Each structure stands twice: as C-alpha cells, then as structure tokens.
C-alpha cells in the first residue's frame, strides 16, 4: 500500500533521505520518524502478539506502540524521534539480534 499519512500543510521544507527496510525513502526536515515512514508506508512494524501490523497509537510517548529498530542496533520511539538524514530504519530486529539466534 502507499502512504497512510496525508500532508495538509508545511510542505515547503527541505528533503531528508533515509532508508526503511533497505528501501530509499525521502521525508521532510522536521518530520518525526513516524511521519516520514507513514507518508510512504501503511505501517511501521509487525505486531508480536497478533496477525495485524502496527502504525503507532497515541503519538505522545504513552503507548510505546511505535518502537522500531535501526540497522546499527538501538531501537527508537518513532513518534518522538526527529528524522535525521541517513537513518537506516528497520521494521524488525536486525537478523543478528539477540546474539546467537541467527547468522
């Protein structure tokens, strides 16, 4: 599916390039990670507990629904983390985490 989010205002901002699950995407300076991903994708990650996907819920740091991964390891809360150029974001844990579970 294409993006979930619809931009209504503030569209004249510089572009910021990043990757999500290896795909090159472009957001705008001032986007949160959640906004930048959801303007190109329908969701952020799979659910660990059900068949549905997850796309954030409260956007104010209370529900912890929007935690995703980065290629270099640390996780981040997508709704409260500003997008930065060159971010390499992942919907699921990198294959080598936790240590010993995958190549």
């Amino acid at each position, binding site marked *: *599916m294409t993006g*979930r*989010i*619809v*931009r*209504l*205002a*503030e*569209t*004249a*901002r510089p572009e910021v390039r990043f990757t999500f699950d290896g795909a090159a995407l472009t957001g705008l*300076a*001032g*986007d*949160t990670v959640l*906004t930048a991903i*959801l*303007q190109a994708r*329908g*969701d*952020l990650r799979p*659910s*660990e*507990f*059900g068949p*549905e*996907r*997850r*796309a*954030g*819920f*409260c*956007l*104010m*740091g*209370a*529900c*912890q*629904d929007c*935690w995703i991964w980065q290629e270099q390891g*640390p*996780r981040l*809360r997508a709704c*409260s983390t*500003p997008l930065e150029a060159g971010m390499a974001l992942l919907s699921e844990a990198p294959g080598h985490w936790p240590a010993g579970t995958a190549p």
Partner: protein
Amino acid sequence: MSRILIVGAGPAGIRAAERLVEAGLHPVIVDEGARAGGQIYRRPPAGFTRTAAQLYGSEAAKATALHSRFDAMLTAGQVTCHARSSVIALSAGVAHVTGPEGAQQIGFDKLILATGAMDRLAPVPGWQSAGVYSLGAAQIALKSQGVALGARMVLAGSGPLLTLVASQLIRAGAQVAAVLDTAPLADQLAGGVGMALARPWVTLRGALMRAHLRRVYHAAVRLTGIESDANGPTAVCWVDRAGRARSTPCDAVALGWHLRAETHLSDLAGVSMRWDPQFHQWLPQADDYGRAAKDVYLAGDGLRILGADGAELAGKLAATACLQDLGRPAPDVAQDLRRLRRMQRFAKALQRAFPWPADMLRSLPDDAILCRCEGISAGDLRDALPLAGADANRGKALSRVGMGRCQGRYCQLAGAEVLAAKAGVRVAQVGRLRSQPPVRPAPISAYVSDTRKDGAE
C-alpha cells in the same frame, strides 16, 4: 536554596515555574517534549511556518503567552530544563531521569508533578488494526506535523476533544467521513445546562463548533466494530439513534472518551488515589492547592481534569503551596481558588454531558481485543475471573491485561468494567492497577557503564 523539581512543562508546569521564579527560586524542570508547551499547546518543530492562530485557534493568545514566558525564563537562566527527558522512577528525594543526557538522578526537596493526561480509551472490536489511533494522536499529528493520519477518517468516542479535533481537521483540509458520538442527547442537554452556567462563552464556542460539523456528526451512537483488511481499517460499523445498523468506509479511525489523568508518578510518590464516579477514573487526592503528600504537590490534568485554563491556575496554586510550606511570602490566591471552583463545576457538567460508555464495554464480545499491547481478548480476562476474583491486579497477573508496554494506560478502565460486569460488582470495587517503575521504557544502554575499551561490545 530549596531544590524544587517540576515534572512536565505544559500549562500547569510553566505557571508553577513562573511563580517560583518570581519568588526568587530556581526550579529544575523535566519535560518529555522537545519544546515546552505540553500537549494542547504543543509546538511544531523549528522551521514550521503556520501561525499561532492557525495552530491554536481561539486559544492562540494563551498558547503564545505560555511559550514566550517559558522561553524568557530559560534564556534568563532562571530555570533549568531537561527536555525530551522522562522521570521513570522516584525514590526518597530523588527522581530517576532518562533522556538525551543518558540516565541521571536529580535530588529534590519539593516535587511538583504536572504530568497531564492522555486519551481515555474504550476498546472497540477491531481497534488493534494499524491505522486506529487515539483522538489526541490525530490532533498531535495535525498540530505538530501538519498531517492527517488517513485520507478518509472516522472520529469516534465522546467529549470536547471529539468535536474540536473534527473541526480542526476539516478546517485544515482533511476528509472526515463521520464523527460518531456515543453520548445520548438527553445527557448532552442536561450536562450542557451546567456547562453553560459555569462557563457560558466556552460552552457557546463548543456548541457553534459542533453545529459547523453538520451532517457528519451523529449523537447517541453505539459502536459495534472496526472492519479491516491487511492494510488497516476499511470501515467503522455502528448503530444509529434509531437503531439502524450503519457502516462508514474509511482508512483511519481516531477514538477517545475525554481524558485520563497520568498518575503513575503520583502513585509512586505515595499519593492516595480515590475512585471518582463523576470523572469515572481513579484520581489523586490533594487539597485545593494540590498538596498531595509530604513535599509532593500536584497540578493540572494529572490531578483534576479541567483542561488548559484550569491547569494554568492549578500550576500557580501548587507553587504557592510550595512557597507557603517553605515559609516564604506567597501571593494571595483567593481569586484563583474561586476561578478553579468554577472550572470544576464546568468539568463535572461536561462529564455528565459526555459519559463513559460503560454499557458498550460490559457487553464487549469475548473475541474483542481488550489489551492492544499484547492482543488479549475480553474473553481471556473473563476467563481469569474464577481464579482472580473481581480484583484488577490479580486479573492482570493471570490474564496479562495491563501488563503490556503501555502499562495499562489504555486498557485498565475497560478491563475493570469487564471484570465488574462479569462478577456483578461496582467498577470501583475492582480497584486499580498499582503503578510500577519504570513508568517509561528505560534503555539498558543508559545504565551500562562504557568501561571496557578493549573493542568488545
């Protein structure tokens, strides 16, 4: 000098800081936002160009006044603020904080908690689908990012935020397919009279905003489910006032029934909680000024859900109490106390106008997901009743409802309703979930000291 720590830089926290600064004190503030303002007066990132009038409507002057007051105190070095930081635990006189500076401990003599509120949620079957959000989320997305969370949205629930968010989205150019209010018209009328008597202009403004929604708005709705496919919501199913089954196609849903006080830190600080039947939730106990426990003061929606105007007053009052208890001169607050009581009358009438949908929850189907975090159904919780009894904490231990990563913030009121209905007791008898630290995720990296320099990780 006395060390005073304020948690939260919304309307309550900012006004509390201001009063302390005026008395010559230097408060330390911890706030989760990147820029102070709180949720309702949340500021967009630097570089955004919409005006305060576009962002905050009729409340633009209040928002701007708060923001500039805070920025002035910060620039003058009168306050210390840890932005994008969370207090995750409290021990005697020490707040445990995580943020961009890593983990740190901040000692205090007096603690002012201005932690605000979040959406009060009731599960609707299918709400676990990606693309179902809280009403607050829809407003935050618009205000701080300039986006709508879908191309065709349905907003559902009850309370002032329902009308406000719908109106803001429509004005910004979003497509709102339906605004579904579960409040019966008779309640809205009865509550509306009390609201108008306490705050006529605010009530009139709300009524006009509602009138502008025209045929998109439906009262006395029963929500029956959210239909989804692999991409998220496709329709909201509901029953109208006349009992007809309806379905509104959409690709995003925002839900909310007023607000729920954020009380995890006040609970950890030893403040007593009391079931409030009017606000239909457990609320901290405090005196009129916000004194809640030894050296602990509460202000704003985390104590009494009065909205932003009430939060500004409560912030001043809590700081005043703090000054009095330190034996320092404090301004006269008789007028502030009178205004606060008027806001309380308004808030109680508002609760009557837009009630919590208890009947909808009590009849929630067994297969409906109750806990969004871990996908636990209403039936799973009902199955726990024979062993758990009608007790929120034992129900949590046996079913995991309330044990997920939101720590029960979004499911515990509904869970209590489901347990109470099954056991045939009043919801207050089920009790409340005990708060557990850390009240926000604590990254292990913040606590692991980086002492090994031999290249090993």
